[in-house]
């Protein structure tokens, strides 16, 4: 069913990149079939679809990172066949991956020029590279210095570095795979500015996002993929967010956010007093009560993730006292917290959440290994059973249970990670960016899941850079700035404006450690 491709005024423009009958299969598994697509110069072309619909796969085919099993590409009307991404980049097509792919121990400038270092005579010309890096960083609105080490930066900054890397040279087609998944509002604004500039320069931008308001705001045309098939291409002006969502999932959608539960007055499940992380960089006290969703807002670099990592003993930290479920935790560690009933779901699923080269079952059971296999031996049958149940319960779309975690689509990895921490049957769940990279249908599933959790008398802490999510989900919001909680909002007070206002101080807009 190929829906009508609507005639626009600029249809006459020759497509800069054209996919003709593109398909991709991994062994017996077909993940993309018969995609025919025109990308025009100077357009922002959004690609939307559910998790696992094949968006990233299509982008990899367009940019030489993978080769199609059928079909071909044309650039400016002539057929091209990219053997690898280097050839594609030489032809002017560049992909910014959904996941961070930077050398963590190198500086920003070294990463940007990796493999194409500028030289003067025999020596690398650091001065010139740093200068050009600073220029392009400013263009994408990254708050980083060319000499900063990548692994020291928050994920959002790393994402901007990746984008900067793609924009270092002149491009004809820039592909951004979920560029804003890790960004907070301010960075998103900067990025939208960058995309606008590219468009005005005649560059074609392919844009994948699960944030439909962005798509509505930014895109000229929208292509929808579902289950590896192309549903159609529409001018963005003809679709609103709801229609987009329904085209993606192929059915009508219900309410996104569950109704709020109101304030809880029961005795708190988690009490944190005078927690100091990274030698005082972050300091906070807070409580979480059963039956509530506590939202933690703030800008990137405000110290929210650091706070929780410190609470879990994953960073140097010191606390006045920590109580989980009435148990006093003397020396916090992931294990001690888990036994007391507190788990943390990291925002960095590739780096800290999943073993990408391991299969699904070992990933699922890694944290709850002691309960899945009580003896010293592994209970393989039990693991497979647990995996089947998790796939069912969390609706993880896998085409075979023997895949490696890294072969799942981004959103399905997120669901696997959720299933993994829930295996330990916690009573307090801290989720850092719960719906990063998750499509709208699954988002509402995850919100329902969180709601069911707290309805059952448990508690949930949600750290989110997505304001609508924070506002739609939380019964109470703590806003962090510069490593301190600066505001507490409840009930009607929880609005996007109030959160933003509290998060951005007049004196210090970045609030955190972004500026070295």
């Amino acid at each position, binding site marked *: 069913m190929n829906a009508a491709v609507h005639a626009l005024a600029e249809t006459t423009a020759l497509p800069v990149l054209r996919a003709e009958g593109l398909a991709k*299969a991994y*062994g*017996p*598994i*077909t993940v993309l079939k018969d995609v025919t697509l025109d990308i025009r110069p100077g357009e922002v072309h959004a690609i939307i679809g559910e998790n696992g619909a094949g968006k990233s796969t299509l982008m990899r085919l367009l940019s030489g990172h993978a080769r199609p099993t059928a079909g071909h590409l044309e650039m400016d009307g002539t057929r091209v066949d990219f053997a690898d991404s280097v050839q594609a980049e030489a032809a002017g097509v560049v992909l910014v991956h959904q996941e961070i792919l930077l050398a963590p121990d190198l500086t920003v400038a070294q990463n940007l020029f990796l493999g194409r270092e500028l030289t003067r005579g025999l020596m690398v010309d650091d001065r010139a590279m740093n200068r050009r890096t600073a220029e392009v960083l400013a263009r994408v609105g990254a708050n980083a210095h060319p000499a900063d080490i990548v692994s020291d930066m928050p994920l959002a900054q790393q994402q901007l570095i990746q984008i900067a890397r793609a924009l270092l040279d002149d491009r004809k087609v820039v592909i951004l795979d979920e560029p804003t998944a890790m960004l907070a509002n301010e960075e998103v604004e900067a990025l939208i500015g960058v995309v606008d500039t590219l468009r005005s320069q005649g560059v074609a931008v392919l844009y994948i996002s699960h944030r439909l308001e962005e798509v509505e705001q930014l895109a000229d045309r929208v292509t929808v993929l579902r*289950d*590896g098939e192309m549903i159609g291409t529409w001018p963005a002006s003809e679709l609103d967010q709801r229609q987009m969502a329904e085209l993606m999932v192929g059915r009508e959608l219900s309410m996104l956010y569950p109704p709020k539960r109101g304030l809880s007055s029961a005795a708190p499940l988690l009490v944190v007093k005078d927690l100091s992380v990274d030698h005082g960089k972050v300091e906070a006290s807070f409580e979480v009560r059963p039956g509530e969703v506590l939202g933690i807002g703030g800008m990137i670099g405000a110290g929210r993730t650091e706070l929780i990592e410190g609470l879990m003993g*994953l960073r140097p930290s010191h606390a006045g006292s920590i109580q989980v479920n009435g148990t006093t935790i003397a020396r916090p*560690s*992931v*294990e001690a917290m*888990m036994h007391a009933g507190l788990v*943390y779901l*990291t925002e*960095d699923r590739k*780096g*800290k*959440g*999943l*073993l*990408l*080269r*391991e299969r699904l079952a*070992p990933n699922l059971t*890694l*944290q709850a*290994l*002691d309960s899945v*296999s009580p003896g*010293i*031996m*592994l209970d393989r049958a039990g693991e497979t059973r647990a995996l089947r149940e998790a*796939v*069912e319960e969390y609706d*993880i*779309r*896998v*085409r*075979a*249970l*023997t*895949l490696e975690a890294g072969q799942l689509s981004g959103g399905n990895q997120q669901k696997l990670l959720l299933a*993994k921490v829930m295996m330990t049957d916690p009573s307090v769940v801290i989720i850092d960016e719960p719906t990063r990279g998750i499509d709208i249908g699954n988002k509402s599933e995850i919100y329902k899941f969180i709601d069911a959790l707290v309805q059952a008398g448990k508690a949930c802490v949600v750290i989110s850079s997505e304001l609508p999510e924070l506002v739609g989900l939380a019964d109470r919001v703590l806003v962090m700035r510069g490593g301190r909680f600066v505001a507490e909002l409840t009930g009607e007070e929880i609005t996007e404006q109030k959160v933003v206002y509290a998060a951005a101080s007049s004196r210090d807009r970045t609030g955190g450690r972004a500026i070295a």
Partner: protein
Amino acid sequence: MSSTADITAAPEKRRQGIRWGELAPFIALAVIVILGALINSNFLSANNLLNVVTRSAFIAIIAVGATFVIASGGLDLSVGSMMAFVTGIMIMSMNAMVPALGNWAILAGAGVALVVGSLCGLLNGVIVTVGKIEPFIVTLGTMGIFRAFITFLSDGGSIPIDRSLREAYRPVYFGDFLGIPYPVLMTIVVIAVGSFLLYRTKYGRRVTAAGSSDDVARFSGVHVGRVRTMAFVIQGFCVAVAAICYVPRLGAATPTTGQLWELQVITAVVIGGTLLRGGKGRILGSVAGALILEVIANVMVLSDMVSEYLVAAVQGAIIIIAMLAHRFTNAR
């Protein structure tokens, strides 16, 4: 061609597919054996084959331990020196206990060796994990230390085992059970226990998790330091087992005992398919690797085409070829 409906119920087809990458070391071993048979008819004699397998036992046993260390994300360069050191201590304690215990001194000495070997491994492990220093550096250091100790203990000469023990201890290397030499039996036991630990226990799962990603393991509540330290202890224990089988062969410990074994061990592990960056361990592959090294040396000695002085060069070339082969079978 394939329907995408009801994907979660899709049969697990991939499992049946032959994984050529995992079979590679065994195929290589078979090829080298066939070549050996073609080059020299003596090669396939039962006597020669038993000899080769027996001699490879030491590297094989140590390589099983090294598989744990490497799979957990570590590296141990000290195994050769540790082997010499453990051998020296073991002989000295056996000799010291002869007057009191007679032949039982052998057993007591073996016990001492196992304890000392495990402690050496513990030392490596603790420095690596508590001191947070690269295992390469730590074990480079202890490699020098163990080697210096054995040189010091032997005063630059050799530490021979007491004459009265020779006869009783001899069979541990030269004897056999139902025609299978004891060192080979020992290797089989080590393989069985090692495979059980690595593939069937929770500890083994945590070893590979820690090796694949330190951070993911930590964030999942795995005690990465403990797991890694334990891998070094297992390595030390394996070194001691190898030492126990080795002593009757030469009857003494010298400053050159076990020299360059660390290279052979790491080569065996790597050509066996274990990744140096950690996260996957192939115990049988490591053993096949040890066999490959020994068979090549044997074939070169038997044939007169290449000087046996070049054995190390050929073994060196093998590791490079193995890595290249790995690269190509893994390229998708």
